[in-house]
């Protein structure tokens, strides 16, 4: 098995007052075992929507998948029966969310919430599930798991809650973990701990990870490959080294220029001019056209395809100027 996950031409749409509007368009990427893919982009660009559509977590009403395939270990996540997807979800494929405090159910103990995942997927008794939960809590370095087991989420700090979330997602030794901005809501010091923990666990458990973030700094630390998203499309994918060394899409370039870096002279920092087009007013052609520094050299009416570069076939770019 070359790829654990192969996504092709995934398009989703959301319903607004006046009709259906595309949220993501023609998303394609693939992921090898043990690989970490970072999906980067501004908020609202469709990162989370992509993850949710693969997990089958899009809201039942007001959203739909228009096209595409997503082969997870050879089976299409998008067309398989719901019940089958449910069984994969939470065991072979799990997700860690952005807000640990609100993502845990406030009326159940944290331990029981971990044990629950074990109970429903691993066909074990309640006692065994509890034992496994305690192991997991130990694994994610929660001190004194036996006493913490019966705590409620509101007793724990955000960092601790996120450890619980991680423990929950690792409960059934998944092959693929979606981490949806898992550190955004946490303090900077805890962010680093959490990234380290995730990395360590990923190595230990031999799993693949899709790491969703808007923070390019984090990307550099955790990812093997990067997919940059803009306005519902992937505009560039590349290995992490290629991307940072040789960004090709004007958006990626602008993005890299917009973040301050400690290791560089920050004189040439510049924000990206203009606004992201809104979902109900998406341009027909290149979605970045209006904001592009090189739009004088280009045309607005053609939507470019995501194409491999001639000089580096592992780096794909959606730009007319790069073809």
């Amino acid at each position, binding site marked *: 098995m070359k790829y654990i996950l192969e996504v092709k031409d995934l398009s989703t749409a959301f319903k607004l007052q006046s009709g259906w509007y595309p949220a993501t368009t023609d998303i394609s990427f693939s992921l090898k075992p043990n690989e970490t893919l970072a999906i980067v982009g501004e908020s609202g660009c469709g990162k989370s929507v992509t993850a949710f559509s693969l997990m089958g977590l899009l809201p039942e009403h007001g959203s739909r998948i228009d096209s595409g395939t997503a082969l997870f270990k050879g089976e299409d996540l998008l067309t398989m029966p719901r019940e089958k997807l449910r069984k994969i979800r939470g065991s072979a494929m799990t997700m860690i969310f952005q807000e640990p405090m609100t993502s845990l*159910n406030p009326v159940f103990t944290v331990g029981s919430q971990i044990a629950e995942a074990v109970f429903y997927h691993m066909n074990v008794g309640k006692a065994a599930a509890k034992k496994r939960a305690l192991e997991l809590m130990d694994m994610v370095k929660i001190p004194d798991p036996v006493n913490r087991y019966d705590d409620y989420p509101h007793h724990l700090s955000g960092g601790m809650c996120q450890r619980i979330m991680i423990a929950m997602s690792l409960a059934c030794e998944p092959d693929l973990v979606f981490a949806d901005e898992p550190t955004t809501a946490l303090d900077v010091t805890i962010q680093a701990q959490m990234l380290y923990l995730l990395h360590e666990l990923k190595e230990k458990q031999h799993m693949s990870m899709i790491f969703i973030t808007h923070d390019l700094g984090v990307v550099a630390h955790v990812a093997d490959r990067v997919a940059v998203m803009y306005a519902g499309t992937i505009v560039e994918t590349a290995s992490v080294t290629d991307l940072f060394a040789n960004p090709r899409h004007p958006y990626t370039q602008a993005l890299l220029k917009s973040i301050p870096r400690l290791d560089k002279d920050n004189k040439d920092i510049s924000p990206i001019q203009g606004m992201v087009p809104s979902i109900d007013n998406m341009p027909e052609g290149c979605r970045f056209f209006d904001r592009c520094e090189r739009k004088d050299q280009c045309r607005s009416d053609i939507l470019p395809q995501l194409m491999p570069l001639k000089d580096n076939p592992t780096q794909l770019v959606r730009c007319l100027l790069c073809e």
Partner: protein
Amino acid sequence: MLQYIIKRLLLAIPILLAVVTLVFFVVRMAPGDPAQVILGDSASHESLTALRAELGLDRPVIVQYGEFLGSLVQGDLGNSIIRKQSINSIIADVLPYTVELTLAGVLLGVIIGLPLGVFSAVYRNSLGDYITRIGSLIGLSFPAFYSGILLLLAFSVYLGWFPVISDPDMDNLGERLHMLVLPAINLGLIMMAYVVRSARSSLLETLGEDYIRTAKAKGLPGIIILYKHALKNALIPVITIIGLYIGVLVGNSVLTEIVFNRPGLGKLILSALDERDYNLLQGLMVIYAFLIVLVNLVTDLTYGMVDPRIRKQ
């Protein structure tokens, strides 16, 4: 926990006292005279005056008030003016009927209302949801005496399934339940409507919460997500509603008792009012206010059972 309960009960004392005081003075402002009730229509002025003196009704109101409070502190509600019986025992005689009716009404409302509310929330904007919502709004709008009359006509008179007089022998469980059915449905109707509506809206809110997404991401069966993860959280506003509308329920229990000719506090309060039996009226209002305080307490304690965040405070 016990400390909390005691504290809450102590806090209720000023309210109870105020209610009692209000009722005490208010009922004595009303025209009417218990002596007249006892002596009948052809009583003479002299005998009325004599009886009033014997009953102690001619003393200054403030003295009567002091006496009333004195015995109230000892848990004694005094004696009925009209019937000379102890009010404690008069109330104790009919209290089971009202408590039984109210509990059955609430239970029925919850047992039927909760699943309906869940259904309505899950299949939101479906035809079923629409019907449930309109239905519950109609249920909410039914004056209790009107729904009672319709129930009585349909099930007692035309179908003949239930007796017209819902005055059961308390020792005969079968009869007791049989006679409870219609009044309980009547009382449960409005409770059901409240529960459906609050369950629906709070469940809808809950279903949008992050932890529900987590539960889905965990791959839990839908039914577990709904009934375990969502419903337990959604229950809190539902409990609030039940507590909040207990006053409405009390009012409806009065009307239900009238329509179904069923003994209970409601009918007692009406005749106490008719007969100007001040003592009985006061006693009943004390009991009502106390019951309402009690229900609020139970509501709060139930929160604790459902929501650990409240429990630990």
